[in-house]
């Protein structure tokens, strides 16, 4: 049995599962990642606001705050070696009403308690001097210089790539249907057959409670998906704003954010809508129009900017306000649940936290001495891009300047995309202004026979 037994089976390849896979692989474990979708990052991780948060407004003393702080620190530490796209833009929390203005001192104090010591009040004039395109309706605010713009997809891809390069295995289209725990560990019953692992870590996000029930027969929490819609403005809009513009947060959401993206666009969102469905990430015109209006109100120059894209993401909200990470030591099972919108910032910290939990429970690690460091394509408009290097073999996606070489490398790489969505996330092809008007045909030809869901359809 030894050869096909895994030390750790991770259920779910969202950003948390990818970070988990990297952590345990680096700790020397034999890791298997099971993802029920055809590609990684297909659930909550496929859409968010793409910000690396300091955690300045997390509840002080919470597990969430601790994981964000640790995740933030590790992200900055590994960003260079893993070629993670990152841009220090800083953030400003802006008050637009007297009530919001009154709330600022306590928020600054909270930031300081969370260790974000450079959070500092800003006067109206100072804000308008630094962000001259913001509406002069604003009343005041404070800055958090340590917030960054990142790319949620290449970050998670880089984590899983490093895991794969160091021996981890990934199975896509592999759903966990059930399992039994015995003296030898877990026998998992999956859609691709039976698999054996000593320890299971549930990182199933939107399906976390479902996987809990299938494996341990009880759930630690109930997931209530919360939908967030976003609109993305044309790259020309990025001249209008430098910092991440955050609203004064309320109980349910951080509110509407206006910020650049690392791809040089401007993003406005999210909405916060509780819903039953774990898959319905559809957008509604009414909500998009409303986001646009709110964006224009804060940043009037957006009025003349075109919209490039609109999307929605689902966050796995639960009945708890904090993360729910529980180690069922009797069953060698860790449930990582309730990772809300901050999961992107916290993922590396969550992985460290789970590694510490297992260590406390007597798990022995032998960390890799010289782990491989695969190089990934840094998809950022603020860093050198592939097209600027010789030999790119021509541009395929003209709006995002994606080269034929980049697309070929991804299609023939260690984790080829299962879907067109996956290809987009890995290369940015079709993600620009024209949304595929010019390059869809070329991509259809290049990917022929290579995607699980082909771009073309068969004749029958």
């Amino acid at each position, binding site marked *: 049995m030894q050869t096909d037994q895994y030390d750790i089976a991770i259920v779910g390849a969202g950003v948390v599962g990818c970070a988990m896979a990297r952590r345990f692989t680096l700790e020397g474990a034999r890791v298997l990642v099971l993802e029920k979708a055809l590609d990684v990052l297909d659930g909550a991780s496929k859409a968010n606001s793409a910000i690396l948060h300091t955690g300045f407004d997390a509840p002080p003393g919470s597990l969430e705050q601790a994981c964000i702080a640790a995740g933030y620190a590790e992200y900055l530490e590994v960003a260079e070696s893993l070629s993670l796209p990152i841009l220090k833009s800083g953030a400003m929390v802006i008050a637009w009403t007297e009530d919001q203005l009154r709330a600022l001192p306590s928020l600054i104090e909270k930031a300081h308690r969370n260790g974000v010591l450079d959070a500092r009040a800003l006067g109206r004039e100072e804000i308008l001097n630094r962000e001259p395109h913001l509406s002069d309706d604003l009343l005041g605010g404070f800055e958090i210089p340590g917030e960054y713009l990142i790319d949620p997809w290449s970050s998670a891809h880089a984590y899983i790539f490093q895991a794969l390069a160091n021996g981890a295995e990934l199975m896509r289209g592999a759903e966990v249907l059930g399992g039994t725990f015995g003296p030898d560990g877990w026998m998992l019953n999956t859609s691709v057959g039976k698999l054996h692992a000593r320890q299971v870590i549930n990182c199933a996000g939107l399906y976390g409670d479902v996987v809990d029930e299938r494996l341990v027969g009880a759930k630690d929490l109930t997931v209530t998906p919360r939908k967030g819609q976003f*609109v*993305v403005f*044309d*790259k*020309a809009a990025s001249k209008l704003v430098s910092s991440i513009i955050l609203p004064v947060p309320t109980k349910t959401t951080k509110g509407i954010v206006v910020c650049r993206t690392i791809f040089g666009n401007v993003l406005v969102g999210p909405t916060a809508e509780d819903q039953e469905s774990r*898959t*319905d*990430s*559809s*957008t*509604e*015109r*009414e*909500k*998009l*129009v409303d986001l646009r209006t709110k964006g224009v109100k804060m940043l009037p120059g957006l009025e*003349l900017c*075109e*919209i*490039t*894209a*609109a*999307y929605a993401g689902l966050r796995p909200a639960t009945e708890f306000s904090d993360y729910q990470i529980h180690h069922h030591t009797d069953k060698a099972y860790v449930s990582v649940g309730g990772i809300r919108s901050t999961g992107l910032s916290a993922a590396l910290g969550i992985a460290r936290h789970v590694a510490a939990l297992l260590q406390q429970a007597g798990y022995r690690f032998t960390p890799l001495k010289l782990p491989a460091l695969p190089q990934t394509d840094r998809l950022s408009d603020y860093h050198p891009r592939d*097209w*600027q290097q*010789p*030999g*790119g*073999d*021509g*541009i395929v996606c*003209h*709006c995002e*300047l994606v080269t034929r070489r980049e697309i070929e490398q991804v299609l023939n790489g260690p984790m080829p995309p299962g*879907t*067109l*969505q996956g290809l987009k996330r890995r290369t940015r092809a079709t993600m*620009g*202004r*024209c*949304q*595929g*008007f*010019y390059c*869809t*045909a*070329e991509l*259809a*030809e290049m990917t*022929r026979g290579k995607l699980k*869901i082909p*771009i*073309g*359809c068969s*004749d029958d």
Partner: protein
Amino acid sequence: MIEGETQKETCQVAIVGGGTAGLALAAELRRLSIGKVIVLERESQAGGIPRHCGHYPFGIREYGRLLKGPDYARRNRETAERLGVEVRTQTTVTALHPDGVLELLGRHERSFLQADRVVLCTGVRESSRAQRLIGGGRPQGIVSTGALQSMVYLKGIKPFARPVILGSELVSLSAIKTAAHLNIKPVAMVEEKDRMIARSIMQPYLALKGIPLHLSATNPRILGRDRVEALEFTNRQGQRDVIETDGIVVSGRFRPEAALLKTSHLAVDPGTGGPVVDQFGRCTDPIYYATGNLLRPAETSGFCWREGIETARRIAADLDGAGFGSQSIPVIAADPAIKFVVPQRLCLSEIGGGMGRFYIGLNEPVNASIAARADQGLIWKGRLSARPVRRIQIPMIDPSKNRQASEIRISVER
């Protein structure tokens, strides 16, 4: 800028975009004995949108015969090359600089090109689903007509079998013709407005093809997770209607392909989405010209071809030292019904010529008088009964007779 540059290549005229206007213009420049004329085309073959319009009618005016798009594109290409135009394909212009310096990206390397005059001919594309704020999921199987045409005609790939066509412009009818080529059977045409955008004489064509037309279909939503499953909308009676389908063609609502412009030093007109030009076709940097559909969405190939030829003649005169002058006044669209007026500026030049007409685009139907005034003085007034997405042209004033004017206003008088 690229480091380590040594010597810039130079030419008389560099043309960005080898579609109909760009090729016609390049050929005409050579007929007028302009020395080195280079067309920069980012696709693997020049010809532009007609390359993937595998149907009639093209070429009557230009070649005196009825051609399909690809044959028309080939003729435009061959004519230009025969006249000595250098057509450089798979060459992307990545930046425009003052003094006519272009940054180029070829298949293998980057370089600079400095031209005495640069002409932007980057054409138009259709608005995307996001730009039209069409809600719903994001499954596979949602394409523009342009993408459908290139998949079908250039690659022989069928993206779906029974799509819904969203939009009812001329190009939406082209989507039907394109679909037929690979035995794709559209199940419906859905239009948000209360009438067909293409002239309603096209309606019998739909009936002939057995494609139902749904007008006043508001708030469309696309359903489906992996692949398109249905299109949902509110019908004329205010009820939700669902059409089962495996694809959506998001057609029409053309807009200039102005990506390069927007990152350049040249002014953009929010009305057209294209560059601000004067009656000679010069942008706000007079080394740069623009012509064809980049000026405004969207005209026929024949129209763009003629625009290219006329612009070439002006550029030749300019290079010959015509001295168009630099003083210009704004042309203002002074009514909410008017979406844009081209040109957006009038050069108060002694030299006549230029476009000779204002090209007007509407936001809403107009049935009233339209007037052009230089300051307060009436220049021209006429009756206008027209709709959006129609060709509307009114006579341009003679700038040499209005040298004291500070602005031109185009207004609607109801």
